């Protein structure tokens, strides 16, 4: 007999593998979608990573840190500057943006570690975002200020990213890797430690868990994920503008987390889809589009206070966020 045999309780978490079908089915999108629609899908992929990174801090770690939009900008400008001034290949620029985003995340974690929490952490991180926007605007010798930094045509290894379809496949690959890695991380002792800190920081330490280490890890991971999103965003828009990382964007990213569902990776994807696609859809009602957008957000949060992910929870408990993997 095998001593370490795992009890044969039906593993509910295995059903979640249906999620693997989503990127597979998505592979056919470029065969049906026109250039514009594909651009929207690409933007959804970018904002999926923005939301996954933001949600890790807001939903899982439970810290009111709003520096993620700034990390997003830092990632985008890092890639843009490397490609414009140093002819760095896109893949390498993505790697550097990931590292720089992680470093920015580390710096943000220092404020939280020093006991700056709640509204104080919120205002400090918001101020940091505005400071970065000021840097982009006034560092115009490098960033071209409010005109934005125009990128050269990028290629991912041998694939030229000269239209939306190749961008889609590269972005899909990056998104799947990052989302899967983040999901692995969350459904492990590391993810449990992060959520435990949110629920009760003192009790977490009492279990031998070095809480400061996991707070830093969460911020660094979040910053890296959003750094990658920034690198994707730079190539998606081909021009990096300071306005793309302002306070309005912070609110939209915050909205994506809440509309999708805090603490849920799948929720993050849903939130990114909803709040990227809806404004595009409402463009057909000029002058009213922002009003409609606002109304929809309010309605979703009124009727689904736990976000779109709660619709999946109603279908089956299988879709509840779980912090282990068997």
């Amino acid at each position, binding site marked *: 007999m095998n001593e370490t045999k795992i009890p044969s309780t039906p593993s509910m978490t295995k059903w979640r593998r249906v999620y693997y079908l989503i990127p597979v089915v998505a592979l056919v999108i470029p065969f049906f979608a026109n250039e514009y629609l594909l651009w929207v899908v690409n933007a959804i992929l970018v904002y999926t990573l923005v939301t996954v990174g933001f949600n890790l801090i807001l939903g899982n770690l439970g810290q009111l840190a709003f520096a993620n939009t700034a990390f997003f900008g830092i990632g985008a400008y890092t890639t843009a500057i490397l490609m414009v001034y140093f002819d760095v290949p896109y893949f390498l620029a993505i790697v550097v943006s990931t590292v720089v985003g992680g470093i920015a995340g580390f710096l943000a974690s220092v404020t939280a570690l020093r006991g700056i929490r709640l509204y104080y952490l919120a205002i400090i991180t918001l101020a940091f975002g505005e400071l970065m926007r000021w840097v982009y605007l006034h560092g115009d010798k490098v960033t071209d200020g409010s005109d934005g930094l125009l990128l050269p045509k990028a290629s991912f290894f041998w694939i030229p990213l000269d239209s939306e379809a190749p961008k889609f496949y590269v972005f899909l690959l990056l998104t799947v890797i990052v989302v899967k890695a983040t999901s*692995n991380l969350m459904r492990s*002792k590391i993810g449990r430690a992060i959520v435990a800190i949110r*629920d009760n920081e003192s*009790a*977490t330490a*009492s279990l*031998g868990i*070095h809480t400061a280490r996991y707070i830093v890890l969460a911020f660094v991971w979040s910053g890296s994920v959003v750094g990658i999103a920034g690198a994707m965003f730079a190539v998606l828009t081909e021009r990096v503008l300071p306005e793309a990382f302002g306070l309005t964007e912070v609110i939209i990213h915050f909205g994506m987390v809440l509309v999708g569902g805090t603490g849920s990776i799948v929720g993050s994807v849903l939130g990114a889809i909803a709040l990227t696609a809806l404004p595009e859809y409402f463009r057909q009602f000029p002058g009213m589009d922002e009003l409609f957008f606002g109304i929809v957000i309010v309605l979703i949060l009124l009727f689904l206070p736990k976000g779109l992910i709660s619709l999946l929870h109603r279908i089956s408990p299988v879709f509840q966020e779980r*912090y*282990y993997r068997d």
Partner: protein
Amino acid sequence: MEPLLKVQGVSVNFSGLKALANVTFDAHAGEVRAVIGPNGAGKTTLFNAISGYVPSTAGTIYFKGTPIHGLAPHDISIKGVRRTFQNGGLFLELTALENILAGLHVHIDSSFMGVVLGLREAREAEREGIARARRLLDLMDLGAIADTPVKDLSGGQQRMVEIVRTLATEPPLLLLDEPVVGLSPPMRDRMMEIIRRLAGEEGIGIILIEHIIDLVMSGSDVIVVLSSGEVIAEGTPDEIRQNREVLEAYLGHA
């Protein structure tokens, strides 16, 4: 017998206020030691000082012969002094199983890269942890609620989950801050029975804070009486019952 825990001359000051003054006692393996005293006597502060949540201003604390005063809470926990919290220290959004798994954190031997890449050894370590956590819950008849979020459990079940979580790593010393508060009388008796068994059969040293005098008298081997941060008496339940000073200071009748 070499004491498990040696608390010597420990004082804690909160901005001039003396919360603990020169507290000294030894705790032993296999012993249930109750700390009693009126509200504000410094019982929880004593626990916080032992487990590293509050820095002591004077004195030393030795666990198994090595100093633990000045260490961070997680380091003291890893050394084998584990505690529960008065207001409940559970992770309410997590299931009972996930709470126990968090309790097993330091025993689940998986690396960062192993976890991120989903490597075999990390997944094996995780599976072993899950199997162990389920076994622990089954042992306490909590198997049926393993996958229930803790916030949906009854007060009694929550207390049990917290005890199981604290015990998951088989710590030699357990600090229980009011383990039966909010429980029905039959549940209280059951909890005290479990605590007695942990000390008697597993040889775990237990220090507990408790207000219900009957439970303390029947359930503990030694009682430490705190008043205004000072130990005013220490002895067996019988000795404490006879102690005039305790009767006056704490029990309120002479």
